[in-house]
């Protein structure tokens, strides 16, 4: 990952630029721009894209991936990779389908259970990495496989039924306009904005940029790292919860597609994969962009066989564009 760090992480303070310009050229700004352009294309090909129904559908489709990508962002900023996302999403999905809890109280209890499952897996990851010194990919690979195994033990083939309340209410709209799933995302964003100003939040960026000097500056590095894994795990749990609301059924391999897509969403959102730089909001928008792209291509008449070709190119272009903007800014600064 050395090539990325050359150009991406070392960005000096830029006092002369206006905050607006900075927001636009940051990763979040770029992905937001891509999202708006894609949405315009979508609306052009399919005028119904502007209706509440289509928008709700889109938000519902994107929420599980967006939550998972949001969780992954914590670990990536702290300079690590968390593969356990695939395991936790499968495991929580299966738990939701095999042990449905009816009613609003049941839904809340289920949500808590999903959070606890994710939190426990995250804590195990954190301890393996921060206390026992395993590499993040290796440790989370192990926990991912164990979680997938547990999911298979609970439910060995697709089946089961998710509680009605979860399936219907959580994919619905509030007052006929606001998608309920969107509220989950909003809550996560608000919590994130509050979190990144706390000591732990600053420590998260610090250990991602340079763990050694962060430690010398008094950051409790291993505690922050464990926290990052736990927060990530809990968000994967919520992602599994929302996925169950979407699919209404259980599948022991439901989480597998999340493995690559979450990293794609995180990278698309402008978070540096070598740590220390990035934003959870960008990851959520990145996830939204990946899902929107599928719809746009479909409405544009592209065979679903070839969707991947476009996804790959958008991913590469977004990063090249981000690199180019960063390079131009650096050059301008030097002059």
């Amino acid at each position, binding site marked *: 990952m*050395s*090539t990325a760090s050359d150009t991406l992480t070392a960005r000096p303070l830029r006092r002369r630029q206006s905050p607006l310009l900075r927001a636009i050229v940051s990763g979040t700004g770029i992905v937001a721009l891509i999202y708006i352009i894609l949405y315009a294309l979508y609306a052009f090909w399919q005028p119904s894209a502007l209706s509440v129904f289509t928008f709700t559908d889109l938000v519902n489709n994107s929420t599980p991936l967006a939550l998972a990508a949001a969780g992954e962002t914590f670990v990536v900023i702290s300079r690590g990779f968390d593969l356990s996302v695939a395991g936790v999403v499968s495991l929580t999905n299966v738990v939701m389908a095999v042990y449905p809890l009816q009613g609003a109280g049941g839904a809340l209890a289920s949500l808590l259970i999903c959070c606890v499952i994710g939190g426990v897996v995250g804590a195990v990851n954190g301890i393996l990495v921060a206390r026992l010194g395993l590499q993040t*990919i*290796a440790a989370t690979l*192990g926990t991912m496989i164990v*979680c997938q*195994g547990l999911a298979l033990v609970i439910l060995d083939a697709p089946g089961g039924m998710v509680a009605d309340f979860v399936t219907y209410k959580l994919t619905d709209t509030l007052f006929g306009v606001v998608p309920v799933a969107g509220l989950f995302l909003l809550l996560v964003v608000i919590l994130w904005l509050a979190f990144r100003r706390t000591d732990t939040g600053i420590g998260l960026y610090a250990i991602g940029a340079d763990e050694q000097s962060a430690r010398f500056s008094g950051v409790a590095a291993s505690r922050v790292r464990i926290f990052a894994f736990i927060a990530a795990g809990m968000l994967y749990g919520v992602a599994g919860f929302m996925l169950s609301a979407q699919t209404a059924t259980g599948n022991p391999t439901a989480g597998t597609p999340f493995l690559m897509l979450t*990293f794609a969403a995180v*990278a698309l959102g402008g978070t540096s994969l070598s740590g220390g730089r990035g934003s959870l909001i960008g990851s959520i928008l990145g996830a939204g962009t990946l899902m929107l792209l599928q719809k746009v291509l479909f409405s544009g008449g592209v065979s679903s066989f070839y969707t991947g070709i476009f996804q790959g190119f958008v*991913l590469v272009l977004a990063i090249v564009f981000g690199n180019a903007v960063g390079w131009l800014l650096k050059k301008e600064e030097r002059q």
Partner: protein
Amino acid sequence: MNAHRDIMTGLDATADERGSQKIDHDIVSALLVFGLSIALILCSRFISPALGSWDQVLTVLTLASFLVVLSFGQGLVILIGGLDLSIPALITLGGVLTTNWIGTGDFGVWYLLPVILVVCALVGAVSGVGVVWLKIPPFIMTMATSIVIASAALGYTNGTPRGGSPSALLWLMKERFLGVPVVIYFTIALVLLAWAIQSYTAMGRRLYALGTNREAARIAGVTVNRLELAPYAISAACAGFVGMMLVGYSNGATLRMGDSYMLPSIAAVVIGGSSILGGSGTFIGTVGGAILLTSLGTVISAIGLSAGWRTIIEGAIIVAALLVLRGELVVRLGNRLIAWKR
């Protein structure tokens, strides 16, 4: 360097004559991995009498050969601090092109097989170009390549690959020579060649230098940019070749034939003692990791547990192996071995 040769001569790390108290971490790590695999196969006799036999050893080695070839490429990419996520897509590409262009009729098999490998290597070189010149993180670049290639293969075959295996590949995978499958001789030759390339050629040493410290390697006169392309191209060619091997093994290609090899290819490298951050590790260790993972898989599947429990045990053993093989512990163990021998 002496210590490297010891693995081949007698599995005897104490022959190290450097007179140093510190033993090479890589060597102990590789020995431990090999020891674990042998112990695993021997112990599996207690589970079922059919296990631990010569035939089972041959089966494990045949199955491991796929992973060994793959993890050579993956290991080189990891060595320079990258990661190759395009392996499943390139396995599929290699397989699909083999059945589509050559097929059972052996049409032009002698020049088309190399051509397919070159096509795969070119795809890998494209990933390399993205990483080196467009400064895209390897993780993302190879993932993008993977998505694009998988999608192209899907479109090219219209969802269902047709055709069977050329007879040359059937011969490689199925035929036996002196009671041992041909593919095992082939893999051993490949391992020796690959090991020599990685550990003894100038290119191999430069790759270590590049993985340890890119800037230092550049100042020392290594043409870093061009060198960095090579591992991606080699990894892609290895994956394409595994696609061919799988075609010979199952006499056909499927679009998902590579999926189950993505994580094992990384796991084999990491279990073999390489750092995921690059700059360390030996190919022999990786080979040990591949054999350990495969024998683990076959032993676990023979126990007769449900798929879920098998997966749980596999994951737990991977974590346990990683904990046992952690750096300091291995070095301490190695030093104690030396002290004890003296």
